[in-house]
């Protein structure tokens, strides 16, 4: 019975471009754009949840990794003529490299200092993006990033890009599942829930935090590459603290540590404001207000509500 439900949902999601074309032919481009954004954001939120939800490190540095990957892909595509399939892994690797480099000193800090340190990293990355004009063109942005090509296939139409974004989301989702269940998931959760005991169990907390941190950064970088190939433009504004707030909202209001929760949160908080056509400032005010309200009243977010409704078992 439930299998049929999931299958049906899957079909709808894959067939979306056609359904949209049929339902709202004049808004087609806009709706597809929103869907693509939602898929990319959902993937980014999942990568963020790996660090925040599963290993329990409140990192505020995610925009930096997204930005590093985005700029790497943008530069390689426009200056060195690299094809998408080469630029994507390069972007992921660049982001992972930065994470590996800063992670070691960062994780030596206490939790609070870690959060501040990651925030500082995000700021430094933002400042560099704005000022290293020779490389990033600063506020002038890097433009003319070509549409991605998958071998002989050129991803030029919106539906094609939608499917690419969807495929990326599925890939990230599968990876997320694999990393957060079974033995590796247990190790992450052990470090998150009781670090001293994890040590007594022979688990090296630093190793596992670095693992989650670096993988999450690589994913963020890869998504950044997809992002710039979609928009054809990369500006420093894309990697500010506002992105962190967006991610925090999606993860904490959707349900931290839960695949379903994060997906629901991504759909709600990416699609909804687009649908409501909110101005960016008002959007942030409402987001901030909502986040404040929910975090103060009900820290588990929508996921705990969902859990209570569907009566899921304990131990997750």
């Amino acid at each position, binding site marked *: 019975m439930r299998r049929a439900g999931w299958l049906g949902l899957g079909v709808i999601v894959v067939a979306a471009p056609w359904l949209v074309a049929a339902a709202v032919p004049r808004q087609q481009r806009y709706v597809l754009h929103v869907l693509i954004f939602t898929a990319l954001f959902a993937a980014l939120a999942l990568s963020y949840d790996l660090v925040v939800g599963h290993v329990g490190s*409140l990192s505020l540095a995610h925009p930096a990794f997204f930005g590093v990957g985005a700029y790497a892909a943008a530069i390689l595509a426009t200056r060195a003529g690299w094809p998408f399939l080469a630029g994507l892994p390069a972007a992921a690797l660049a982001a992972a490299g930065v994470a590996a480099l800063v992670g070691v*000193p960062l994780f*030596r*800090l*206490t*939790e*609070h*200092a870690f*959060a*501040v*340190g990651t*925030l*500082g*990293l995000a*700021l*430094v990355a933002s*400042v*560099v993006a*704005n*000022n290293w004009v020779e490389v990033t063109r600063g506020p002038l942005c890097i433009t003319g990033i070509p549409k991605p090509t998958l071998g002989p296939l050129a991803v030029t139409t919106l539906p094609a890009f939608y499917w690419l974004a969807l495929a990326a989301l599925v890939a990230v989702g599968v990876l997320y599942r694999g990393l957060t269940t079974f033995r590796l998931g247990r190790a992450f959760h052990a470090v998150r829930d009781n670090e001293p005991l994890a040590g007594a169990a022979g688990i090296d907390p630093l190793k596992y935090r670095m693992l989650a941190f670096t993988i999450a950064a690589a994913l963020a970088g890869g998504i950044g590459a997809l992002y710039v190939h979609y928009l054809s433009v990369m500006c420093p504004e894309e990697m500010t*603290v*506002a992105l*962190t*707030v967006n991610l*925090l909202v999606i993860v*904490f209001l959707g349900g931290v540590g839960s695949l379903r929760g994060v997906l629901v949160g991504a759909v709600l908080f990416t699609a909804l404001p687009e649908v409501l056509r909110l101005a960016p*400032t*008002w959007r*942030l*005010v409402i*987001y*901030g*207000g909502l*986040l*404040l309200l929910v*975090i*103060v009243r009900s*820290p588990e977010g929508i996921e705990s509500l969902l859990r209570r409704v569907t009566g899921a078992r304990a131990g997750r």
Partner: protein
Amino acid sequence: MISDVLEQLLHGLTLGAMYAMVAAGLALMLGVARLINFAHGEFFMLGAYAFWFGYSELGLPYAVAALLAPAVMVIFGVAYQRGVIRAILPRSWHVQLIATLATSIVLTNLAIIVLGAQPKEVPTVLSSRILDVGGLRIAWQRLLVLAASLLIFWGLHRFVGRTRTGRAMRAMSQNREACAVVGVDVQRTAMVTFALSAALAATAAALVSPLFNIFPDMGTTLTLKAFAAVVAGGFGYVNGAIAASFLIGLTEALAGSYVSYAYKDAIAFLIMIAVLLWRPQGLFGRRIGI
């Protein structure tokens, strides 16, 4: 040449004094109430706008407007404390961080909507008068900032060291559980500390606004730099935060002038990172208490 360097040093001291007043408030909240307040910079920003409103819009004399800012912010601070802080204080620091970060976003964007994103200038008599001492030129306002900050730090030191509330603050920062047992009014002390930290930030804003532009976003970077100072000085240790703030201010001014203006905002973090690499517990280590 020497006068240039000296000028930059004085600019650095002014900057450092501003950072120090903001960081001191942050360190107090951290030390006394264990609160991570990411909206702290917004107290500065709102205080600056309050000063601007009093001085430019209402035409109040400088001293009155400069006192209006902390007064307004104390009221706002108490309201915020009642509404939000009290609810998040017993919770995990993740909740505190996210809640205060959310507040910061709300306040910043509301400021953009209500007051406009264009920067405002509030030149005062003292900010345009320059003191010229043998080739060394410095605005009187900067001297005022330095003098006022020294006075404030001295006052703070006496308050924390001599008064009953100050003693309660120190006790809370050392052993919170014991405080309730011996009859320290934990709630009231926390509220006073919060009001004090808001007042410090707003006073700094009123002193410094004539020298710099006022814009809605100014709080965010300031919060981060204040945190960098707090972390580098040894979490929750007020004097450490003050010392680190002056270090950051001086380095920023000198590096901004002689190395690169564009990257000066990153200086605070580079210093913090350097300090933490050398001593993960901060410059002044794991002291107990503020």
